[in-house]
């Protein structure tokens, strides 16, 4: 088995909603990302995919469970290990405007990121210049303020900050969702290239399956705080086994009028359940066309079917 760079074990994150209700944003997630792999994480809003990403880079603390980095619990209070974790794990955000301090130049932002970790001013300066060039911007951008550059350029600056510490693992949380179509492709290619050149391990979070299809070698599907299916890219898109994955795939509009009009759509009935008030049993059963009485009662565990393909479903698609 390949070595897992980062791994979630029984990860749960609970929030108290009001006085008594508990929102389980993460509800027992086991997920590993192999070194050098790009794992796609898809799901609808409220599925907990961002919470999972933020927990994996240490921005949020889990209520239960552990995050392992190279097999070691990240909660280990060992100063040298903690310092290494801060360098090795980075995050790219959805909205590049909110991810950059409006009162700091791009250069100051990247340098501050390095200076905090003990870099000298001169080293930080040359490293910032190297990072911005790798992100596909001229070094003259270092003296720009965020409002002086375009959205795509801002996202490149955020990427520059993330790669400046030479990390091993990056969480990309919807990195292209806020961008225009023509800019989106540029950023996807950049991330792809950085991933390849630096052997980065990446968790690529997106609600857009076609973007994930392009970026990732493996894909995991989340629904209400749980992983419901995980498979290599080809298997997941050709033969999805979880009905939820099937519905997601069929809901994506294809930019081809001929095919779009011919294809059969599975249109889910009903609404996404409230995460603070989850249905009993399988959380998808209220919308699932295949649901039976069993699904109503028993929550299916994530199990392996075939090599590298896992699902959590009582009645998988054929």
């Amino acid at each position, binding site marked *: 088995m390949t070595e897992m760079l980062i791994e979630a074990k029984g990860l749960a994150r609970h929030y108290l909603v009001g006085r008594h209700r508990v929102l389980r944003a993460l509800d027992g997630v086991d997920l590993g990302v192999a070194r050098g792999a790009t794992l796609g994480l898809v799901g609808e809003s409220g599925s907990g995919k961002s919470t999972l990403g933020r927990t994996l880079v240490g921005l949020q603390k889990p209520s239960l469970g552990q995050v392992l980095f190279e097999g070691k619990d990240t909660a280990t209070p060992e100063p040298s290990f903690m310092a290494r974790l801060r360098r090795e794990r980075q995050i790219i955000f959805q909205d590049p405007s909110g991810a950059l301090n409006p009162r700091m130049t791009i250069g100051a932002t990247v340098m501050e990121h390095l200076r905090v970790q003990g870099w000298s001013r001169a080293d930080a300066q040359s490293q910032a210049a190297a990072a911005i060039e790798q992100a596909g911007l001229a070094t003259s951008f270092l003296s720009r303020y965020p409002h002086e550059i375009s959205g795509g350029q801002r996202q490149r600056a955020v990427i520059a900050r993330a790669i400046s510490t030479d990390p091993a693992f990056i969480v990309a949380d919807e990195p292209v969702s806020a961008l225009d179509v023509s800019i989106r492709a540029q950023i996807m290619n950049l991330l792809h290239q950085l991933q390849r050149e630096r052997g980065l391990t990446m968790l690529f979070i997106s609600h857009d399956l076609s973007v994930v299809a392009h970026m990732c070698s493996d894909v995991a599907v989340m629904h209400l705080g749980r992983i419901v299916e995980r498979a290599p890219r080809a298997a997941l898109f050709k033969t999805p086994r979880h009905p939820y994955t099937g519905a997601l795939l069929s809901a*994506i509009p294809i930019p081809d009028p001929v095919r779009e009009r011919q294809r059969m759509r599975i249109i889910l009935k009903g609404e996404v359940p409230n995460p603070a008030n989850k249905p009993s049993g399988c959380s998808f059963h209220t919308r699932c066309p295949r649901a039976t009485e069993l699904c109503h009662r028993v929550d299916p565990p994530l199990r392996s079917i075939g090599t590298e393909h896992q699902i959590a479903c009582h009645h998988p698609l054929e």
Partner: protein
Amino acid sequence: MTGEASTPLLKVENLLVAFGRAKAVDGISFDVAPGEMLGLVGESGCGKSTTALALMRLLRDAEIGGTAHLNGVELLGLDEAAMRARRGADVAMIFQDPGTALHPMIRVGDQIVEALTAHLNISRREARKRAIDLLRKVGIAAPEERFSVYPHEMSGGMCQRVVIAMAMACAPRLLLADEPTTALDVTVQAQILELLQGLVREEGMGVILITHDLGVVAGMTDRVAVMYAGAIVEMAATEELFATPLHPYTHGLLRSIPQLDSGWDEPVPTIPGSVQGAELQTGCRFAPRCAKASDACRTPPALREIGENHFVSCWNTP
């Protein structure tokens, strides 16, 4: 009554919207036939939403030029009182964010009743009955109960259904839908699109569907107009446009969409650079990003008919 089918429902000629020196919409012309759905696509800032707001006469502090005839009535020349009477009754609009399109403190049913009584001379009881019918029509289960809930008690998809019900209340001849599903999850988007398509077919109204999502356009519309930096660069029947895009921008846009079955690990074709302010340029707006740009592009190209009903504004298309 002969020849009425050939007269367009909406005829926009040379529409111009300027905010100070910046021309957001720079002399565009198009028409919409009764029962037709026209897609207006483009990236953020290309002027597609501004076009809709100008037609609704909802822009303040803007200089507006050109004409827009709806059933022979010039919308842009109406005084405010006359326009208020048309808004909702003859032409209605659906906004992107259903959360802000509804009044947060008024029960959703009463908001529909409001829309009805504003234009139709009917009693409140009659309006209430119609509002419940409308809620049922937009696929809201148990409409009598949902009549008296507040917007925050409903999901985003449900709110958008209410917004659609309000827009449909007075059976407008023309519906402007501005990114109606962008804020929604894919599975919910599929539901809303299906609903919209059904309603439009049933009522036979004309629709302008504004979106950045070419997949949505492919599945929904009869004709497409592609906008870039305030101008329409290409307009054709949907199937024709996707099969043989003639403008380099349309071509690039279509190629830069990642697709589910496109190869993994290959770069997505991109359009280099980003949109530049229209006021900076004299010639073709797209020229700085265009691979085909030549000396001819220094003068702005006009929209000309190349194939049957296929319009392009580019010097370098045969």
